[in-house]
């Protein structure tokens, strides 16, 4: 298909459609309301379902019910709305159901602001709800990647029967870039061929989709089954990108999403100025490319590792864990809707290098 210029929010909506995610439940919230405004027109064209729910609490639970059908279901929201879904997300994970949650992160905590931020990293990667579960978390840095990862999210959700989160930010949602979609809407598996959805028990034994196990042995079994999935994700799903990580790099940047793009500009500019800096950009935030970061960070030439975030410091804890104290781990962050400029990141790098 030809490239088209599209706003991130709309591209995300179209990506879901192309992935066969035709069942959308949502409640408006800035900066992602355009997703719903796009889909309310688009979904009827393809026989999809759009329900504007009364709240994000309801959204989470509508997704829970809809996911039980075996079809591809999703929502989009932004930070406070995602907080309201935590109970439902925990239930969906506990019940081994696939659903895609897209969080176009804004500044927090509380009502905060509506500008882009990355301060929901902890919530997304450590699990904001209760109990032993994790989300698989994907973080796009361009509109095209948002499209690709949203489509991937559905596949992974169904592969693992686990909720998957796409962590964008207001910038990704609001900007327009050229994007390409697959020609047609993906044929998704027929729920009748699956052995878990609630399709009505005609001709088979009834199925119960639940997360309650009064017997602690049974509950533990369920939790260990979840843990096994997360182990498998760690083995199979780690995704990241290296940008100009060369043998002479002095500083290794770790950054994701919009922030990583800014780091690329920083790297390009510093390259011209003769300072070699590289970037490892995690694409999956959970599973986190821990070993990959360690490997790069421990290389002789690296003098420091710098986590650059639009937060007061969240991913840096995982970076710190990865590096294991062998190299200094530094943090540079702006938050609350402020997107650091290449200049300030550059300055910070020069400071680390003792050049400023």
């Amino acid at each position, binding site marked *: 298909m030809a490239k088209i210029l599209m706003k991130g929010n709309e591209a995300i909506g179209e990506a879901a459609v192309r992935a066969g995610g035709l*069942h959308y*439940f949502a409640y408006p919230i800035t900066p992602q309301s355009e997703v719903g405004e796009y889909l309310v027109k688009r979904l009827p064209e393809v026989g999809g*379902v759009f*329900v504007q*729910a*009364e*709240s994000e*609490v*309801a*959204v*989470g*639970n*509508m*997704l*829970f*019910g*809809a*996911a*039980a*059908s075996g*079809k591809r*279901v999703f929502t989009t929201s932004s930070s406070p709305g995602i907080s309201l879904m935590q*109970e*439902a997300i925990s*239930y969906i994970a506990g*019940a081994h159901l696939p659903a895609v949650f897209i969080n176009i992160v804004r500044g927090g905590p509380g009502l905060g602001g509506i500008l882009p931020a990355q301060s929901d990293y902890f919530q997304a990667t450590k699990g904001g709800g209760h109990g032993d579960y994790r989300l698989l978390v994907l973080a796009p840095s361009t509109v095209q990647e948002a499209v690709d990862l949203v489509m991937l999210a559905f596949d992974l959700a169904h592969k693992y029967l686990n909720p998957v989160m796409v962590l964008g930010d207001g910038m990704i949602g609001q900007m327009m870039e050229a994007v390409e979609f697959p020609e047609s809407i993906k044929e998704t598996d027929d729920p009748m061929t699956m052995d878990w959805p*609630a*399709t*009505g*028990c*005609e*001709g088979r034994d*009834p*199925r*119960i*989709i*639940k*997360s*309650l196990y009064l017997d602690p042995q049974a509950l533990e079994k369920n939790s260990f089954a979840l843990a096994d999935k997360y182990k498998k994700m760690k083995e199979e799903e780690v995704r990241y990108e290296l940008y100009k990580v060369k043998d002479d790099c002095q500083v290794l940047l770790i950054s994701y999403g919009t922030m990583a793009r800014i780091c690329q500009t920083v790297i390009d500019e510093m390259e011209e100025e003769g300072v070699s800096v590289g970037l490892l950009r995690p694409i999956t935030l959970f599973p986190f490319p821990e070993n990959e970061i360690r490997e790069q960070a421990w290389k002789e030439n690296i003098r420091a590792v710098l986590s650059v975030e639009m937060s007061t410091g969240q991913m840096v804890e995982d970076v710190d864990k990865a590096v294991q104290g062998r190299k200094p781990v530094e943090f540079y962050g702006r938050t609350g809707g402020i997107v650091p400029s290449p200049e300030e990141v550059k300055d910070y790098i020069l400071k680390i290098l003792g050049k400023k």
Partner: protein
Amino acid sequence: MPEAKLKIFERPKSFTDVVTHYCPGCTHGIIHRLIAETIDEYGIRGKTVGVAPVGCSVLIYNYFRTDFLEAPHGRAPALATGIKRVSPELIVFTYQGDGDLASIGMGEIVHAANRGEKITVVFVNNAIYGMTGGQMAPTTMPGQVTTTSPMGRDVSQAGYPIRMSELLSTLRTPAYIERVSVHNPHNVIRAKKAIKKAFKNQMEGKRFTFVEVLSTCPTNWGLTPDEAQNWLEDNMIAFYPLGVFKDTYYDNDEEGQK
């Protein structure tokens, strides 16, 4: 040869043969049976999906031979909305207690009703939180003693009980709302009719149907099953009048109903 034995009443086919965990005399069992009989009589077992609440009836799925989802506390109408919208060929019902539906689940029930989701809600009003050990519910009667109203429900602090059927009847969208009781056989018979009617409405594509069933909780009321039935009759019915609050079955405007 003696005449053939004819069963004129038996355990519903939609029931499993599991003995319930309910306390002796708890009317949850009766209401379960009415739903199971309805499913049998309409022959819809294979396309019915139930949504369980959190409350004493959370294990309802162990007793039914139909698919079931288990909702978070209060959110059954949202789950039901989700699955019914995505799979409109299913018959979807929720089964919810008064803590579940009238307290924590108020938002979900009002909005599912108001959007006119094509689901059936069976609302079991036993004026108390059974499962967690007998705390006050929004439906607890004035003066009724519970573990969180040890001196009796004090309406000056907690207000009067909420009447869900009346409240939902202020909405224009729902197709059918009735309050019944199961505190004696005659009322059980009426309750059965109401539940059948609700399912029939749904099968014919009518919108939101709701049956409130006054029910007993002998254990947490501290009464025998017999006393509990009498208490219900003497105390609850005056405040929770039985009857049809809304029925648009024969109405016909552009959306199929007023």
